[in-house]
């Protein structure tokens, strides 16, 4: 198990085992790691530990959280890393290394609490990881795929016309001139260059030509395909 060693002005104050999924660091006494110093915010940072890996996250502290000298928001921790919170230094110690033996078989985390199956030795992992997984998946991201979107033409003969993107793959443009497609993926909507006709011009997003990779679309992006401008909206 990983540990952290806390020191102030070079003197070691104490050591904590990272035995909880989340450990908060701060000046108030309700923190798991309580640092009574005015340079420390009331809830300054937290360390999340998942199996063998730990992560540091700054909790919008006044003076910031530094990792090996750099101001950070979120980072993975590696053995020997030094976190600085106010005047305190916190050394992360994790002797477990990624040796060949750790190259374990792929495991399935069963996140369906109703049908949780116990497989050899994995029960605890299922539970602890399943819980964290539920926590992180319940937050914002990953839901854009369900969101409806439309485009509105803002130039050309059909200016003002709207098209609801009801299909997962919608093609746009003029054959022989320029054809593009908008595709809905689990991670959001993307513009794809399909065919440039005789010229090598590519469709544009906010006046920049897109590359060969699918280009992610944001609300209010202005697209230009075959010389026609249109705005992309979420509904």
């Amino acid at each position: 198990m990983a540990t952290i060693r806390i020191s102030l002005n070079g003197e070691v104050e104490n050591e904590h085992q990272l035995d909880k999924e989340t450990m908060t660091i701060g000046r108030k006494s309700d923190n798991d790691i309580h640092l009574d110093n005015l340079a420390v915010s009331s809830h300054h940072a937290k360390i999340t530990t998942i199996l063998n890996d730990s992560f540091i996250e700054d909790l919008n502290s006044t003076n910031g959280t530094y990792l090996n000298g750099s101001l950070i928001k979120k980072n993975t921790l590696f053995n020997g890393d030094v976190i600085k919170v106010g005047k305190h230094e916190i050394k992360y110690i994790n002797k477990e290394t990624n040796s060949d033996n750790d190259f374990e078989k792929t495991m399935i985390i069963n996140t369906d609490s109703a049908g949780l199956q116990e497989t050899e030795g994995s029960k605890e992992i299922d539970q602890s990881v399943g819980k964290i997984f539920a926590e992180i998946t319940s937050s914002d991201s990953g839901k854009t795929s369900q969101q409806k979107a439309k485009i509105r033409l803002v130039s050309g003969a059909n200016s003002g016309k709207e098209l609801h993107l009801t299909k997962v793959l919608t093609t746009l443009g003029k054959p022989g001139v320029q054809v593009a497609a908008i595709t809905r993926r689990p991670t959001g909507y993307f513009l794809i260059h399909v065919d440039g006709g005789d010229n090598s011009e590519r469709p544009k997003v906010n006046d920049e030509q897109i590359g060969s990779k699918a280009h992610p679309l944001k609300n209010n992006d202005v697209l230009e395909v075959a010389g026609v401008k249109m705005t992309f909206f979420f509904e």
Partner: protein
Amino acid sequence: MSLKDKIIITGITDEGLVRDHNEDSIASNADWGLLVLADGMGGHKGGEVASAIAVDSIIQDLSKTLPLITPGNTDEKTGYSLESMSIEKAIKDANLKIYTAAQNNSNYEGMGTTVVVLLFYDNRITIAHVGDSRLYRMRDRILEQMTRDHTLLQELVDRGFYTRKEARESLNKNLVTRAVGVNPLVDVDLLEDIALVGDNYLLCSDGLTDMITDDLIEDIQLNYHDNLNKMNKELIKQAKEHGGKDNVSVMLAQVIKEFPANSGWFSKIVDIFSN
């Protein structure tokens, strides 16, 4: 209409250097432009059973449903093509078969499998996947990962805890958050895109991507672009030379000619302002 002369398909599955059996399964049908790859896990012999059921069941299912589809139709409720809907259903059916088999035989308890399916039709593709087997596309000499792993690691990358490079070094790399056959129901990620002549598609189990980097995959594809069989062999060889700790499977598909369902496809497919 057969796609045999329009899309070249290859596939190799290999035990690797450490494991004594192969839990991956692959299958393809060149006439339909269909590729299926599965990486099984769990149980005693469960992994190889789960991946074999998945691949067989999906191919069987699609052999019945695909011929009945008129190209160019969309499912009104979801916006997906009917081809995509058939693939999703085939994976869900396979899920239930594996789940049921696991419930009825204690040797198979807890087994599951990843799956990635690629289908070419009407100058388009559908990619369906569950788990951490991947699909990459090489277009204009640039490699793009089209699927997003269903792993704890990917969730953490998405939330900014890791960079992709750090993720490669993480200890938690082998935790799959979604698999076929583990629960009675499964969510399938579906993706539709346009296929272009010259595109090169790569399906693989994590035995490839845990061993070699995306950069090396890209280099190999560029070096062997004119010979798909050699490209496939080289990818397997490199995975083994870089450790070969897991079973490794790679399937490739290269588009050599357009494959419209009807001729004059551009005039047909453009949904807006073509006049």
